[in-house]
């Protein structure tokens, strides 16, 4: 390298003659460099012109979005109370942790998940799900933080570490009477993607808590208040610099139910460890007094912490705890259909009270032998005996006289085959077969032999427990079917109760049917187990076959194919106040279901008596309190 010798004589370079022409060679090249520099400056200026002049509006908007945040103030959901004002669904305020997506950093996902005991993959997936939503929608992370989690959040939020974490005061649902009326109340949960895309939930946003089933769902709009908003100016760490405006949250409306918690609890105790449903109505108003479907999950388990495993277990449980049997189980009513048959026959003028049938344990119809449940036969039976002892042969004859279309007409009059219109989601209509129905659904004509089965509540006929209670309640009141409902105000909205349907029934005929149902419980009938001294409970047992007896015999069928037991009853006889239908799935026989109804009816009248007693001051109590000397001693 030539550099070294120069170093030894630096003065030489200083004194070296300077020749101006030395730099001449570069003059043209320097000019080229100047043009290049001009190009660079023009390039830079154009870049700024593009942003600041051409697209100013766009960036003004962007800058505004950067600073202004709308933080939601969640509105508390309305409470739910029973008919006496006892709280059955309440709110509990807690802190909800959310992720603000504007300041979200990918590398924070793992530490945040670790600090909150969440699965990092789940969290990433959740964040991905929000990808297409506008960035001002926040991601709900966790409700009800534990002390450790809260410490973690307090230590890392806002500050330099994880600015995306935000704590929001929120309300969440508590069902203080663990699991009571679970199917009636339903549960709440975070809105999911299919729901977000559906018309029903069109005005809801991601992260909203909505009613998923039961009352929570049906009355979601009333229960949901209007969320408030806090508009704030924030800096890049989401620190609030200025509060621009606050819109307070409007709490949701409280709901008063028609349910009597005391009755509900009795009904649930009666159904403990059984599968089935109990519906108790006040037939005069349509108010639902008790509404049970078992098994049932505890709605508290769904609140804010939906555990995928727990959910899967519920969804795949063979006993279907998520299935609301009270309004969606469509089962053959069995003999509980007989009062409707009896009334139909009387009203249609086909029989009168003197009409009798000889029962020898069965009868031959259309070339087939139809058995009576009593193998030895009932002998000569009239209407009252036929109902009381549930004689199948009697109703085979009646059904044959009526014909399927008359049967269908009266069944539909009683409300079968149609939804009752209860204010709960998921109601099923059941099936009332008719010749038209068969052509419509199966493109086949009706065979008279099928009518024989339907006459005793079998065949294609199905009902829900709610429908059965509704139907029998309407007959008991002499032909007025009130629409069942579970929320008090809902009924009173129009000022008075409108019956769902009315029928001009001959009260003599009604009383003949009721006499039979009275005999079922109180004379020598199949429901004598339901007898309550002092209470005129009328009812009807039912045993509905799920599989033919031959099939049952030929194979060792398990419990799942055992007959369903039914009982429907009302009281008191002449001015019914309560009608109860109970379905005991695989309960083998109706008299087992009758115990359930007896418990509920007894509880109803016991409570009524107790309340009456309290309202009439007993002289004895007053004198007891004022007995002189007792207290002083």
């Amino acid at each position, binding site marked *: 390298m030539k550099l070294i010798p120069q170093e030894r004589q630096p003065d030489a370079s200083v004194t070296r003659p300077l020749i101006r022409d030395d730099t001449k060679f570069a003059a043209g090249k320097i000019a080229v460099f100047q043009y290049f520099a001009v190009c660079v400056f023009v390039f830079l200026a154009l870049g*700024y012109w593009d*942003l600041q002049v051409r697209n100013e509006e766009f960036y003004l908007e962007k800058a505004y979005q950067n600073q202004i945040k709308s933080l939601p103030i969640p509105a508390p959901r309305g409470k739910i109370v029973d008919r006496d004002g006892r709280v059955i669904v309440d709110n509990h305020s807690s802190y909800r942790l959310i992720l603000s997506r504007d300041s979200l950093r990918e590398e924070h996902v793992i530490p945040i998940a670790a600090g909150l005991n969440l699965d990092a993959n789940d969290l990433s997936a959740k964040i991905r799900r929000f990808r297409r939503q506008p960035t001002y929608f926040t991601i709900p992370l966790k409700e009800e933080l534990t002390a450790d989690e809260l410490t973690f959040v307090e230590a890392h939020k806002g500050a330099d570490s994880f600015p995306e974490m935000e704590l929001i005061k929120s309300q969440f649902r508590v069902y203080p009477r663990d699991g009571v009326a679970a199917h009636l109340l339903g549960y709440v949960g975070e809105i999911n993607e299919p729901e977000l895309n559906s018309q029903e939930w069109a005005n809801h946003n991601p992260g909203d808590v909505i009613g998923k089933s039961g009352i929570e769902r049906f009355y979601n709009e009333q229960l949901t208040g209007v969320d408030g908003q806090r508009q704030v100016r924030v800096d890049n760490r989401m620190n609030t610099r200025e509060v621009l405006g606050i819109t307070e949250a409007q709490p949701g409306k409280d709901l008063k139910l028609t349910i009597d918690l005391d009755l509900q609890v009795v009904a649930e105790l009666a159904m403990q460890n059984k599968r089935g449903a109990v519906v108790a109505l006040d037939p005069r108003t349509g108010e639902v007094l008790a509404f049970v479907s078992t098994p049932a999950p505890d709605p508290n388990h769904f609140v804010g912490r939906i555990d995928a495993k727990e959910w899967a277990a519920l969804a795949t449980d063979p006993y279907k705890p998520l299935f609301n049997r009270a309004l969606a189980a469509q089962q053959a009513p069995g003999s509980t259909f007989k009062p409707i048959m009896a009334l139909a026959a009387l009203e249609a003028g086909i029989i009168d009270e003197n009409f009798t049938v000889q029962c020898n344990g069965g009868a031959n119809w259309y070339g087939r032998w139809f058995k009576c449940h009593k193998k030895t036969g009932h002998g000569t039976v009239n209407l009252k005996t036929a109902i009381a002892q549930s004689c199948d042969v009697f109703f085979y004859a009646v059904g044959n006289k009526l014909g399927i279309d008359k049967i269908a007409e009266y069944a539909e009059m009683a409300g079968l085959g149609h939804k009752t219109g209860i204010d709960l989601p998921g109601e099923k209509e059941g099936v009332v077969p008719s010749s038209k129905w068969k052509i419509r659904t199966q493109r086949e004509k009706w065979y008279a032999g099928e009518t024989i089965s339907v006459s005793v509540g079998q065949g294609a006929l199905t009902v829900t427990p709610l429908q059965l209670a509704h139907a029998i309640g309407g007959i008991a009141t002499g032909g007025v079917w009130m629409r069942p409902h579970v929320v008090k105000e809902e009924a009173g909205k129009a000022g008075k109760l409108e019956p769902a349907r009315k029928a001009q029934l001959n009260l003599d005929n009604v009383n003949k049917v009721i006499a039979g149902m009275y005999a079922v419980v109180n004379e020598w009938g199949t429901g004598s187990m339901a007898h309550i001294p002092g209470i005129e409970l009328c009812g009807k047992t039912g045993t509905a076959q799920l599989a033919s007896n031959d099939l049952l015999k030929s194979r060792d069928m398990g419990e799942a194919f055992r007959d369903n037991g039914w009982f429907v009853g009302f009281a008191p006889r002449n001015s019914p106040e309560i009608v109860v239908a109970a379905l005991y799935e695989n309960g083998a026989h109706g008299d087992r279901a009758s115990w359930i109804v007896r418990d509920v009816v007894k509880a109803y009248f016991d409570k009524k008596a107790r309340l009456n007693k309290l309202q009439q001051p007993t002289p004895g109590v007053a004198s007891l309190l004022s007995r002189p000397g007792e207290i002083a001693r």
Partner: protein
Amino acid sequence: MASYRSLRDLDWPLLAVTLSICGLGILQIYSATLDTAWRSAWWKQLLWLAVGLLMMWLMTKIDYHTLLGQVPLLYGITLTLLVVTPLIGRLVWGSKRWIPVAFGFKFQPSEFAKLVIVLLVARYLTELKSDRLEVRDLLKLGGLVGLPFTLVAAQPDLGTSLTYVPILLIGLYLGGVRWQHAATVIALAAVLMPVGWFFLKDYQRARLETFIDPMKDPMGKGYQVIQSKIAVGHGGIWGWGVTHGSQTQLRFLPVAHTDFLISAFAEEHGFVGILVVLGLYFLLLMQIVQNAQTAPDRAGMFICMGVCSLLLFHLLVNVGMAAGRMPVTGIPLPLMSYGGSSMLSVFMMLGLVNNVRLRRFVS
């Protein structure tokens, strides 16, 4: 021995433009750091300005020919410092670029290497005395600049090391590189580019990817560019005024007092402000070019043009990056960004330019 005639011959216009730019810079640093942990940065910068002027004066005093004579020594010291830096340096933002001095001051050898490389290139090409470069000249000069380049790039500080390249390029251009050689080098570079991709650090690759598509990762790697463009665009034509740019003041704009100072300036002073700043820089560069044209000898010309091309590169990358026109590279805006080492090295280089100017009539 009067090596220059009079202080009157100092480049006063250049100094005036320089101080104007520094003034705008300090104002912007003040505004961008208001209410932050950096709020004392503006007067520290003022202090650096004073020290810078002193250094500039010193660089003017020593005849640049003397400095050229000391190039091997300076080059040796620079290489030593660059080797030592990773060993005793402080780890900041994942790389070791600084050597702690005293009183909390730290020193960035890679900044001063710029000055040495300017002198090195000038000396080599002066001694060449020919207007034609041979392959061996290319290799030698390339190797001499390549060594500090590699050391700095390994810190890793690719941004700073890249600033050495324009000094070399302008030298080769003015020194008379043959177009065949240039074409060969460009072709080679084009071939080696994909190979170089493998030598880049992940974050460097990410920056290039983000440059091509910032929206690919708006909350992560693309964040800086996006926020910078928002701040710039938000400024509009007239800007929001000092301390009134919301993106700067609410700290949406990242590193607003150093690398992205020009974005903060653009928000608060608008397109008009940007034109003023670009105009000042243009005057500065043209003044340096004029000094090159009037330089008394080859060495002076090479020195001025080396400084000029270095500053132009800084401008292009930093100002272009803030508007999303260049990839994000952590190199400062000369004279405006906060930072002592950068300030001192630029002032020393301007001192060199003045040095050349003072001696233009000496013969």
